[in-house]
């Protein structure tokens, strides 16, 4: 099927004022690192350098944690919940006011299509602050008091490390509940996507948030390690790879620090023969090609019932051919750039392994830009459960198709993974949806939909997809001392 031709419709960058270099945001202001080490953040769609960013060392982390502690012991800790709430409401409103600026910056730094940063990332980030703002003065009503009626209390200083796939959205998932519960935070954004977090620091200043309540320190893995292992941190919240999550869990062993870990996944998206096939195809596309497949809960394993497999795969390929891959700032773009050269290399390596292990590769026939990091939407058929592309998280626009005959076989294959973050089910039969939802060992089940997120809806995994929930009352609890755990 031919694509409709569209004229280029790029979103303007004129709204942005990216500084040539950024310091660390500590105790309410931007400061220079004591070490002086820096790194560059680039636009992955063009490899253009966007800004120079500071790499925080151990001494910087220590200063940030102390600032957070001072704020927790001082003005923030004494502030009544109702007043705390107003700061969060302010932040939500400023994010809405400056949403276009954030969307453009996110697409530039991350490579995701502007239609996603504009319609998903930034509105959801604002919604997270708005939702959690309302909790700040209602914690006694959250059903988290212990048997003796003692209300929950904040934990203290929270160290947060977030990934590059949804930079501002992950920041909001972390900071909003932490602040609503009365904690202070030190947050490290990913090294390839620091810019929206640094712009968020400006939002904190505009909101007149007391100094030290939010501290943003930039850097790579070593900076994150300093933060996680700092003895002044009471709780660690991490979103990222299972490999790093395990290392964090090890480093926290024997301490009294709390942790929530939101890690990798290899979700099954299960299509039964009675599903509304065209809707299911949209859901499959959304499940794996949304955000270039850089999604921990991506539906990266398509399990399709054998009787409709040929039809589903045919329609899927026809649909994927229409996806527009290119300039992230173009409003018509469906699939943007891969976030980094390293991630592109990982995707290439695993897809080559997929071919060499015997799966059949099909990639959408699209013209990719010459500069930047790009990978055409790809579908593997003839995949077995033993193939690495069926077991390992690729974190890219690559779908592995497997088939099944009975619901029991679908369940067995879906659960045959050490992960357990999400799963999708497509069928018109209500009782089957509910039965499947019971059987699937995953934290989020999308039935006849996929990749939906909401601040009120708890998100998080089973098994090696991590522990703890983000969002809703459950997510709030992860930032509070309650019951016997007080």
């Amino acid at each position, binding site marked *: 099927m031919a694509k409709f031709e569209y004229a280029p419709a790029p979103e303007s960058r004129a709204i942005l004022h990216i500084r040539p270099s950024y310091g660390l945001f500590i105790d309410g202001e931007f400061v220079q690192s004591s070490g002086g080490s820096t790194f560059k953040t680039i636009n992955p769609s063009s490899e253009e350098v966007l800004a120079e960013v500071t790499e925080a060392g151990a001494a910087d982390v220590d200063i940030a944690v102390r600032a957070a502690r001072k704020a927790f012991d001082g003005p923030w800790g004494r502030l009544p919940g109702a007043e705390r709430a107003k700061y969060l409401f302010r932040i939500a409103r400023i994010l809405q006011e400056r949403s276009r600026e954030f969307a453009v910056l996110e697409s530039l730094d991350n490579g995701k299509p502007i239609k996603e940063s504009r319609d998903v990332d930034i509105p959801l980030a604002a919604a997270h602050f708005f939702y959690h703002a309302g909790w700040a003065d209602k914690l006694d009503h959250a059903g988290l008091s212990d048997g003796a009626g003692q209300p929950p209390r904040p934990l203290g200083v929270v160290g947060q490390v977030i990934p590059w796939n949804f930079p501002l959205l992950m920041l909001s998932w972390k900071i909003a509940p932490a602040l609503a519960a009365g904690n202070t935070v030190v947050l490290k954004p990913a090294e390839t996507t620091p810019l929206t977090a640094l712009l968020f620091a400006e939002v904190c200043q505009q909101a007149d948030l007391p100094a030290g309540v939010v501290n943003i320190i930039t850097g790579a893995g070593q900076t994150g390690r300093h933060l996680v292992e700092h003895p002044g941190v009471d709780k660690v919240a991490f979103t990222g790879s299972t490999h790093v999550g395990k290392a964090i869990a090890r480093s926290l062993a024997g301490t009294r620090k709390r942790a929530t870990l939101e890690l990798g996944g290899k979700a099954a998206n299960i299509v039964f023969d009675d599903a509304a096939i065209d809707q299911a195809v949209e859901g499959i596309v959304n499940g794996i090609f949304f955000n270039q497949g850089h999604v921990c809960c991506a539906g990266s394993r398509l399990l399709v019932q054998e009787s409709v497999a040929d039809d589903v795969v045919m329609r899927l390929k026809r649909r994927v051919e229409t996806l527009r891959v290119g300039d992230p700032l173009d409003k018509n773009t469906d699939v943007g750039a891969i976030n980094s050269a390293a991630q592109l290399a990982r995707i290439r390596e695993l897809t080559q392994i997929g071919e060499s292990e015997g799966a059949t590769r099909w990639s959408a026939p699209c013209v990719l830009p010459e500069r930047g990091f790009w990978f055409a939407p790809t579908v593997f058929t003839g995949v077995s459960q033993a193939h690495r592309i069926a077991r390992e998280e690729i974190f890219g626009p690559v779908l592995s198709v497997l088939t099944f005959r009975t619901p029991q076989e679908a369940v067995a294959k879906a659960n045959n993974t050490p992960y357990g973050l999400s799963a999708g089910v497509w069928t018109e039969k209500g009782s089957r949806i509910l039965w499947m939802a019971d059987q699937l060992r995953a934290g989020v089940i999308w039935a006849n939909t996929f990749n*939906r997120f909401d601040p009120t809806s*708890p998100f998080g995994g089973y098994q090696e997809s991590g522990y703890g929930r983000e969002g809703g009352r459950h997510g709030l609890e992860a930032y509070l001392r309650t019951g016997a755990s007080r």
Partner: protein
Amino acid sequence: MSPTASRRKATEPATPEQRIEVRKTYKLYIGGAFSRSESGRTYKIHAAGRSGRFLANAAMGSRKDARDAVVAARDAFERWAMATAYNRGQVLYRVAELMEGRRGQFATEVAAAEGLTPARADKVVSAAIDRWVWYAGWSDKIAQVLGGVNPVAGPYFNISAPEPTGVVAALAPQCSSLLGLICVLAPIVVSGNTEVILTSEHRPLPAVTLSEVLATSDVPAGVINLITGRTAEVAPWLAAHQDVNAVDLAGAADADGLAWADLERAGADNLKRVLRPAGDGADAVEPDWSPVPDLTRIKAYLETKTIWHPKGG
């Protein structure tokens, strides 16, 4: 007649009026069966307090026993987790009924294990049975208290509900041989998890008697498995076991030669959920188990599952 009395008279010839007591062999409880340790080992159990008298030879569980118990617990998981909450509640309540019938035996064993007066031991047994009843009643309340509908901003039905984590390995408290044991054991199974319990090392006999209660109750084989033995020897194998989903380190307090940090670190290899022992810093202390608990121990072994579905006319 108490074991001590029978021993004291063992060298004297039995008179027609005197009856020699039939003693019990204390065994492991794995997959619903009573077995000796595959290692063939036993260790001596003595009474607490000044007498320190010999009570029994307990089975000294091994790595292999622990692994067998994990296999039994895994096999039992799906059926127990999928049982209705009402059914699980009744099955667990029945355990309390049977404990009540054996309260004299429990009181004797708790008194010997913990060095308590008969009156005090009787109170402890009452508290343990009542605690079991308290937890049994939670089975069909957990989902309503901890789950609910989420008001998402879109045309979707969205609901969150708790589910059991899977196979849980627990170190039972070292001091409180029955009440503490039940405070650790019951909140794990009430939500549908299955478990492998490493009993108090030096005070395991009430736990073994509890396993005999379990065997005659309706708790399916493999749901609760009890291993007696050296905590520091067996616990690391459970903490590192790749088919164990969570560990409860309550019994790390006062365990000989055991650092709970090592167990937590080993558990990180498959991201086990870890309930740390009470205490500050690296210290581990055994709490007072007598106050009515909150939901902390139930919540520790639950996963929240959230389900979305579109709404449409």
